[in-house]
């Protein structure tokens, strides 16, 4: 176990390092002079040059890269020359927002998808199963921002139950927090639930075909008991993989929802930073996102070995 863990961590570190080089180089090809944007329409070339000097943009690239990396490793993402403020708190705040939304959405999606998907599998050939399958197919086809807009029209503008936009941290009052969390989470979760329902359904169907489920029934369990006691955990394995991938895409995919609901998450920060040519911030956010995705993959891999004793074997 320890050996595997070390090997996986090492792999993670190498991939992250490679990603950091890519991210850094990507930033160098962004058109639009950052200093020019920061200074606005009437900036003089001298002012631009001075700003570049102040923020070390005139140094050789490798030096800038090493400076950036070593800063990041100590938790310092540098200072933005657009906002003139340290970037670390911006990233810390926005990452928190995004993680809350994304994780809550995934939890809600799973809460919906697992029972529905299982039902769809068990009642595969009956109306209920077909209905669930059809609903999930349609759910996947709806762009999530459209779902968000419809939710706003219903719950916010129509019924007036929930605010249409904005964000509140939990410390600002839990009620406020939940009220602002509800719609974005629902918008993301509904579409995710539709996707996951399909995977749950096919995983359960797959498991239902397994011989060991017949064995379980031969032992004296009814169909449902067999499925619950022996089937679901086996079906969880492929679902965990998909949920991991979905979670990773949602980290940035939530940007559309964040825009609709005016939520200061990672995606919004990224779009804003790109628009302002706030390169240091862009660099930092992209890097954090990439590392998060890599971390998620790592976690899913480890979860796999926890869930499935077979993976522990050298195959």
């Amino acid at each position: 176990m320890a050996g595997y863990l070390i090997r996986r961590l090492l792999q993670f570190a190498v991939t992250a390092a490679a990603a950091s080089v890519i991210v850094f180089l990507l930033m160098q090809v962004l058109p639009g002079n950052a200093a020019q944007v920061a200074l606005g329409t009437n900036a003089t070339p001298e002012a631009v040059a001075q700003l570049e000097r102040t923020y070390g943009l005139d140094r050789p690239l490798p030096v800038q890269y090493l400076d950036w990396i070593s800063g990041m490793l100590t938790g310092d993402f540098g200072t933005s020359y657009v906002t003139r403020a340290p970037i670390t708190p911006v990233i810390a705040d926005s990452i928190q927002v995004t993680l809350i939304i994304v994780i809550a959405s995934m939890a809600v999606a799973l809460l919906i998808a697992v029972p529905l998907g299982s039902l769809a599998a068990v009642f595969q050939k009956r109306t209920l199963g077909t209905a669930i399958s059809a609903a999930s197919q349609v759910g996947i086809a709806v762009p999530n921002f459209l779902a968000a807009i419809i939710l706003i029209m219903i719950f916010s503008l129509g019924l007036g139950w929930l605010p249409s936009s904005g964000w509140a941290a939990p410390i600002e009052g839990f009620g406020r927090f939940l009220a602002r969390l509800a719609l974005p989470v629902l918008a993301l979760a509904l579409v995710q639930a539709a996707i996951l329902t399909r995977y749950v359904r096919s995983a359960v169907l797959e498991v239902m075909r397994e011989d060991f489920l017949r064995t379980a029934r031969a032992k004296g369990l009814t169909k449902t008991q067999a499925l619950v006691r022996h089937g679901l955990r086996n079906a969880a394995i492929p679902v965990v993989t998909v949920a991991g991938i979905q979670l990773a895409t949602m980290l940035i995919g939530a940007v559309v929802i964040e825009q609709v609901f005016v939520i200061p998450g990672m995606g919004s920060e990224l779009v804003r930073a790109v628009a302002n040519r706030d390169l240091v911030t862009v660099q930092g956010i992209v890097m954090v996102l990439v590392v998060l995705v890599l971390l998620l993959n790592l976690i899913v891999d480890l979860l796999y070995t926890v869930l499935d004793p077979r993976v522990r074997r050298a195959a």
Partner: protein
Amino acid sequence: MTTRLVASRRRADASLVIGIVLIGIVIGMALVSYLWTPYNPTQAMPADRLQGMSADHIFGTDRYGRDTFTWIMYGARITLLVGVVSVAIAALIGVPLGVLAGMTPYGWLSGLIMRGNDLLLAFPALLLAIVFSAVFGPGTGPAMVALGIASIPGFARVARSGTLQVMSTEYIMAARAANRRIGPIAVFHVLPNIAGMIIVQASVAFALAILAEAGLSFLGLGTQPPTPSWGRMLQESQQYLSSHPMLALWPGLFIAAAVLGFNLLGDGLRDRFDPKLKGRD
């Protein structure tokens, strides 16, 4: 064939048929739009603005008095273009890499390819698209390329696992015993046998690309004016949601139909190619 298999096959066929019909409609509209459209898509007719459904404008008109049905027809082009180009990029790069990783006798090479794949996997589609739109300016082109690059890993993975599976079969052993070289084996044995999986992957990637392009257009990073695109229509119709909901309905409906079509096609094909549904006894 047993009844269970017949039932699955029938369901697969139903998916296939619905999928093909939906996609057929989209493709048909795109093709017809090259020959004929009811109106000129870019010509504004301020006098006719924001009309409802009528004989003249079956889907109504937008804020500039342009015919919505014409826009839907033109929008089908962009939708298909985005899908085709991004899937082509992903498949043309991902599949050869995956096959190579699966066939190479050199562990380091396949390791290198798969690590590269992992690295690419760390850059989700939207992230790439946002960065690309900043680098190359927002537009359909950068969006397609970003979506394509981001879906390379999916294709490479599927191709590799399929290849590994094929390479472990006896017919590959037989082909090698028959003195076939690695190239012909890849072309005549591996590719035809993983084609099913690749097609399924492609149809799903197609659906995802359509959704992603819509999302990007919504952020203003996708297709740019004056090109008609469903995502852009949806984005522009936002302000008319309460006053003229039809403006949002049509693009929304067609996006959903196209995505549904490709997903159903993928499902149908998956069932078709599923070895479990083949007579195996």
